[in-house]
């Protein structure tokens, strides 16, 4: 028996899908999605009935930086352009404390953002209380987003979720940033959260497709009690992409899970709008598979490939070393650092020396 056999109890279950292609997809586009493209994609996703879509720099509010790249426009400019064009969908933003601040959250809210993922590493929830409280004060739909969730045990993760709930989070996400988890890992974590959180607190799952498990993991999450699923049209996102939204919706339809989304419209958006936008095919390839296999933050992919070009150290070697050193989301500077250290060890680079 597969763990994926159809569970009849899922029939009629309502799931809120949350599109990520205008936020996580920014990573895959090196933050170079134009305002016009954002508006076009957002309108198409809105028209297909997706209730929530995220719009920001790939690293969220405060993301414009040398560390994470500069987008073509400010988060405020993207939000102000997208929000008024939507008929039904609400727009969310990402906020990682330590990078984004409450100042930027208030500014995003003023531009029409009505939902926020407040994200921390899976063991550091206590860096989020002021931001979660601020989001609630603004009346936003507020999610605590526990990244790299494979690096904490189900029980440990549940304690972190409990903290976020205590700060005011209405939903807590199990976030598989590395696309490392298997359905059993996802189920164990969602179940552990369900056991300790209040019944009215929702649970979400955000997957990456590095091992090709995005859809299967999302279904496993729903089986264990999740009611919100992040995915991305055509999978446009970091690494091998997010859970491909149109594929997930098709599977939900087959299983009788109610997403309220028009599948055929979404398939058209994927094929006609998103795929032509891709600079590289977002898929499981040697490097993105390495991310999933080694448990490395998906966003590191393109940075590692750039370092391979500059320093002559294979991207796979850099990614494996980053995984070994337990580098986490936000430590993109350590990719170049690690590449340089490996290059020195291999005689490809020298230390600097004083001229005098």
């Amino acid at each position, binding site marked *: 028996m597969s763990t994926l056999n159809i569970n009849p109890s899922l029939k009629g279950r309502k799931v809120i899908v949350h599109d990520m292609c205008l936020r996580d997809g920014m990573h895959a586009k090196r933050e170079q999605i134009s305002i016009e493209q954002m508006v076009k994609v957002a309108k198409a996703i809105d028209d297909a009935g997706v209730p929530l879509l995220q719009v920001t720099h790939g690293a969220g509010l405060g993301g414009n*930086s*040398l*560390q994470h790249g500069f987008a073509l426009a400010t988060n405020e400019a993207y939000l102000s352009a997208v929000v008024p064009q939507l008929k039904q969908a609400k727009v969310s933003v990402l906020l990682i*404390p*330590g*990078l984004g*601040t*409450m*100042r930027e959250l208030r500014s995003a809210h003023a531009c029409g953002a009505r939902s926020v993922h407040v994200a921390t*590493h899976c*063991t*550091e929830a*206590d*860096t989020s*209380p*002021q*931001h979660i409280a601020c989001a609630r004060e603004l009346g936003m739909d507020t999610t605590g987003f526990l990244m790299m969730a494979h*690096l904490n045990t189900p029980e440990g993760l549940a304690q972190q979720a409990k903290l976020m709930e205590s700060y005011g989070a209405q939903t807590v996400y199990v976030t598989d940033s590395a696309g490392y988890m298997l359905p059993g890992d996802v189920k164990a974590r969602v179940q552990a959260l369900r056991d300790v959180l209040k019944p009215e607190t929702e649970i979400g799952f955000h997957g990456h497709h590095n091992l090709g498990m995005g859809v299967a993991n999302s279904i496993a999450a729903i089986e264990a009690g999740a009611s919100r699923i992040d995915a991305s049209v055509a999978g446009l996102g970091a690494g091998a992409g997010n859970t491909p939204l149109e594929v997930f919706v098709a599977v939900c339809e087959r299983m009788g899970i109610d997403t309220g989304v028009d599948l055929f419209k979404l398939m058209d958006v994927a094929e006609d709008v998103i795929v032509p936008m891709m600079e590289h095919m977002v898929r499981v390839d040697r490097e993105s598979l390495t991310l999933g296999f080694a448990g490395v933050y998906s966003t590191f992919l393109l940075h590692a490939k750039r370092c391979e070009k500059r320093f002559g150290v294979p991207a796979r070697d850099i990614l494996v070393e980053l995984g070994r*050193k*337990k*580098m*986490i989301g*936000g*430590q993109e*500077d*350590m990719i*170049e*650092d690690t590449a*340089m*250290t490996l290059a*020195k060890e291999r005689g490809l680079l020298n230390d*600097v*020396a*004083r*001229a*005098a």
Partner: protein
Amino acid sequence: MAKIKCALIGSGNIGTDLIYKIQRSPVLEPVWMVGIDPQSEGLARARDMGLKVTAEGVDGLLPHVKADGIQIAFDATSAYVHAENSRKLNALGVMMIDLTPAAIGPLCVPPVNLREHADKCEMNVNMISCAGQATIPIVNAVSRVQSVEYAEIVASLSSRSVGPGTRANLDEFTFTTSNALVKVGGARRGKALCIINPADPPVIMRNTIYCLTDGEPDQKAIIDSVLAMIEQVQKYVPGYRLVNGPIFDGKKVSVFMEVAGLGDYLPRYAGNLDIMTAAACRTAEMFAEEILAGTITLKPTAPAAAITAQEAA
């Protein structure tokens, strides 16, 4: 040789680590430890190490300042109580070194501007933040060669070295550090990012410094300046080490540093805490050297007068 007597306010990790560093100093002597909880481990430890202690807060110290000849105080409490602590001690002629984010006095990074503060005999100097102490010397090393349009720093801290105060106030940490990259680092704009990494065994503090120069960077001069600055910091933080760079990419200069602590009271990986206590101690030492040499004399500060209408305008 005579030493300048010091009081430590706040009996937590920072205050305790300071005892070790001050005890080693040729010009400083730790005399008082001030806490607020009579049961606290920190106070008990300070007593065992030979300090006088009070659990009555700064008010418990005030009656002893004159008799015990206290001239320098370190405040490792919180931004909320620092202003009051400083006012009370300054009024008695005690110079204050502020390790909280209050920053009511000028910002101090020893190799960059300590000399200036000592010459002016500032009665309150602020030590900014751990990330500030670790990165501003490098920004300054670049900006003294060539103007820096934008400086950005990334501080990676071991989860175990980040206390509840910093965790609950990450925005303030970000703003304080960003501001100091401009004011002390010399960049026109600044941005600070902070990452807390829970890896076990704990990771040593890392700092990456990016500067965007106006015009093509003068690589040779920048490398020399950065390496010279690192030597200056190493005088009080021996574990301040260049890992990679400076490396140049167009106008971008990147420098990758590691900060290992001395492992006094705090473990070696907590270079972020160590660089704060080491910088604070170095700051106190320079003031003490000047006081002992008779080049500066600390004077009681008159209570701040009410702001006049003219000043407010």
